[in-house]
């Protein structure tokens, strides 16, 4: 009895290789039961792979996993679940057409049998209530706001008697208020005796919730689990970034990259460069409702040359529609859009691009690049569309121009005939930058331009946007990362339910921006 309690989850020298890529390398870590453990690291550090190994979704190349002192068969979800390990995914793994009750039932194990709709609702109502998830059990997942979806995903993970709950970057999609609510929920789980492993990448969140912290970098464990009382924000930041890169970043930027402290960011603070008539001018723009997202409702937005305007908001509040409206990919119900002095309200995207609209879209791998096409084809698409479709081209000439441009943007690649899908996320984003950030750009929409990128690539993208801004380009930056927005925006506009719900200038105050973001989000889930 005097022995220390067996660890809730222990990984012994776990290595994971995907083809030639090593995602995890000899990671050995053990987590004590009944505590909240944070696992941190930058993108690409191996956090998600680690979580999936524990959940049985990824078969490690080498190494073993113990739960409560018992070794489990790795690579089998059912084995991990039987041992009490459950994983909540970053972008939730819920079939969108399922109702809440169906989602619970489909995740359950044990006796199933034939159910009735009402029986199913009865069966799961109390479970959801016990976790403070207030929702109609017959609502479909796709109709739920993102915070509720997360609640559902957590409840789904807890349908069985979970002893270890892993949450993969649960805060990435939440507003500051949503994060507070999540953390409250996590603390209640801890009281119930559940061991919680939180995968995070903001230091202030780690310090705010965790009992211990483990740092991963480049697929290796750097340190941990360290009791939270023994680490400082400063030390954590350096552990995450690594000494080599830390030296190349200025302190201010590093802090924004790892979310060291509460972002009170002074902002980029270049309002004086923004002058002249607006490049983008939207007047009470509303869009027709469609299946792609929240419709815009009377949005007014002006961006002047040499200004970065950040759009803050919880995912799904019209940011996507805003980008689509400016790009002529959503139908306007009313209002007008002017671009660089031209009324483009009824103009197609091709015409808008000809005036100088450039887009770094949300979905890099879907909207931004054709992964199975060659680099030169991806790179040349914009220019090829600027003339007759039947005009003759010489691929060799296009490829030379592409090579020049990609080298200028320091893309690492072999040759321009290689598939875009063979590049890393950061390099892929640079190809998009090479295509979209050209001399003809007047307005650049950068939608989540750093999502999934590691610290070096993120800093590169920020640098590119700043340089474009300094040349007088107007930039619209959409991001769910407040540190990013506060660090490089001159102005921040908050969107809520398709409306503009506040506008802020530097120095930004996280409390008031957060309040503008969540105002109705709280109402929605109630």
């Amino acid at each position, binding site marked *: 009895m005097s022995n220390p309690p067996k660890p809730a989850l222990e990984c012994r020298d776990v290595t994971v290789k995907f083809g030639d890529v090593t995602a995890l390398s000899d990671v050995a870590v053990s987590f004590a039961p009944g505590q909240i453990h944070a696992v941190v690291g930058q993108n690409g550090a191996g956090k998600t792979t680690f979580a999936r190994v524990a959940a049985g979704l990824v078969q490690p190349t080498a190494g073993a996993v113990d739960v409560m002192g018992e070794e489990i068969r790795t690579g089998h979800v059912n084995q991990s679940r039987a041992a009490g390990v459950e994983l909540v*995914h970053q972008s939730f793994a819920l079939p969108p057409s399922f109702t809440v009750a169906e989602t619970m039932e489909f995740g359950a194990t044990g006796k199933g049998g034939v*159910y*009735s709709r009402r029986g199913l609702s009865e069966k799961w109502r109390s479970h959801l209530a016990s976790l403070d998830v207030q929702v109609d059990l017959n609502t479909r997942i796709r109709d739920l706001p993102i915070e509720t979806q997360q609640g559902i995903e957590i409840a789904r993970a807890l349908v069985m008697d979970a002893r270890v709950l892993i949450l993969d970057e649960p805060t990435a999609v939440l507003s500051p208020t949503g994060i507070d609510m999540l953390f409250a929920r996590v603390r209640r789980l801890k009281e119930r005796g559940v061991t919680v492993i939180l995968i995070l990448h903001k230091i202030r969140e780690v310090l705010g919730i965790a009992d211990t912290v483990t740092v991963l970098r480049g697929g290796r464990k750097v340190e941990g689990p360290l009791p939270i009382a023994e680490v400082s924000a400063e030390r954590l930041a350096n552990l995450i970034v690594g000494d080599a890169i830390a030296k190349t970043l200025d302190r201010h930027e590093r802090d924004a990259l790892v979310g060291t402290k509460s972002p009170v960011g002074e902002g980029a603070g270049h309002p004086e460069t923004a002058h002249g008539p607006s490049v983008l001018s939207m007047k009470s723009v509303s869009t027709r409702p469609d299946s792609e997202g929240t419709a815009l409702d009377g949005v007014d937005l002006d961006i002047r040359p040499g200004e970065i305007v950040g759009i803050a908001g919880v995912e799904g509040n019209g940011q996507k529609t805003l980008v689509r409206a400016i790009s002529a990919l959503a139908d306007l119900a009313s209002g007008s859009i002017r671009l660089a002095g031209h009324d483009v309200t009824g103009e197609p995207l091709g015409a808008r691009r000809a005036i100088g609209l450039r887009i770094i879209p949300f979905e890099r791998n879907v909207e931004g690049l054709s992964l*199975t096409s060659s680099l030169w084809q991806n790179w040349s698409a914009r220019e090829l569309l600027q003339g007759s479709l039947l005009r003759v081209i010489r691929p060799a000439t296009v490829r030379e121009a592409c090579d020049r441009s990609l080298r200028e943007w320091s893309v690492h690649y072999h040759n321009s005939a290689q598939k875009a899908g063979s590049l890393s996320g950061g390099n892929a984003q640079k190809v998009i930058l090479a295509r979209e950030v050209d001399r003809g750009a007047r307005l650049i929409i950068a939608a989540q331009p750093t999502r999934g990128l590691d610290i070096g690539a993120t800093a590169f993208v920020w640098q590119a946007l700043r340089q474009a801004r300094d040349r007088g380009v107007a930039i619209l930056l959409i991001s769910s990362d407040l540190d990013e927005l506060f660090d490089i925006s001159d102005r921040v506009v908050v969107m809520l339910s398709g409306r503009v719900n506040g506008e802020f200038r530097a120095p930004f105050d996280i409390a008031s921006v957060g309040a503008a973001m969540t105002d109705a989000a709280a109402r929605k889930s109630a």
Partner: protein
Amino acid sequence: MNEIIIAILRSGTPLIYVTLAGVIAQRAGVWNLGLEGLMIIGACATIVGIMLTNSILAAILIAVFICVLASVLLWFVIDRLKANPIIAGLGLTGLGVGGTALAVQSIFGSQASVTAPFGLPKLGPAFGAYGVLSISVAAMPFVVFGMWVLLRRTRFGLRLAACGEHPFAARSVGANPSRMRLVALSIGGVLCAIGGAELAAGSLQFFAQGMTAGRGFMAFAAVIFGASHPVGATFAALFFAVVGALGIRAQLMFGDKIPHDLLQALPYLATVFGVWLSGKLRGGAKAASSFAELKDQ
């Protein structure tokens, strides 16, 4: 009136069985264009089975066995070899149509149709005018109901749907999408065998080359039209059967005034209409799949 209903049930029942096979495959995420081939294999195997074994039960078991085997082949090619389901399905269809022609010729030495001495048992005089229908027509509503329960009211059905809609979600609760697809296609194989048996040995008692004449594809269209819901797709298949029966009716009534070849095209036209409508209702659903993956590794 009875005649029309009998005609609809006769042409509709094989279609409905095959449609259900398409529904279960679709829900598991497989576009099964091999239905046509599976159906003709089922039809041929039933007739040949009757001739060889003189037993209807043995004949159907043979048909089920071969259809399941063919479905497993399709699963292997699609799931294990990552072949494009549409092309592979068309290949299976070609294999079925060509293979049955070859089999009939090699066994009976003629290319013409093969007539069996008897077919599926009939309902009998107790059912009045409907007594001429086979037992599989009577079983059909129960099978539809059973499929509805299985797909819409069990955890198995939920997991199957998840495999089609969000395979990662299915995987993360411990379901194995690959295995689920195997199960779905195998069940589909059984249903196609019954559908083919009903086509060849229900009201008729013979097999002719190419006798399915696109019914398998029509069943596939019914799956799309019916939003891969077992009951919805059943009604879609029934709708195609009604249109077909009305065409034949119109032919009898108008004789030569309307060319009968064009009337025969009605079910195909109805299918196009159905698919168009279902796309319309669901707001221009995205089409099957792109060729992107097909050309590259």
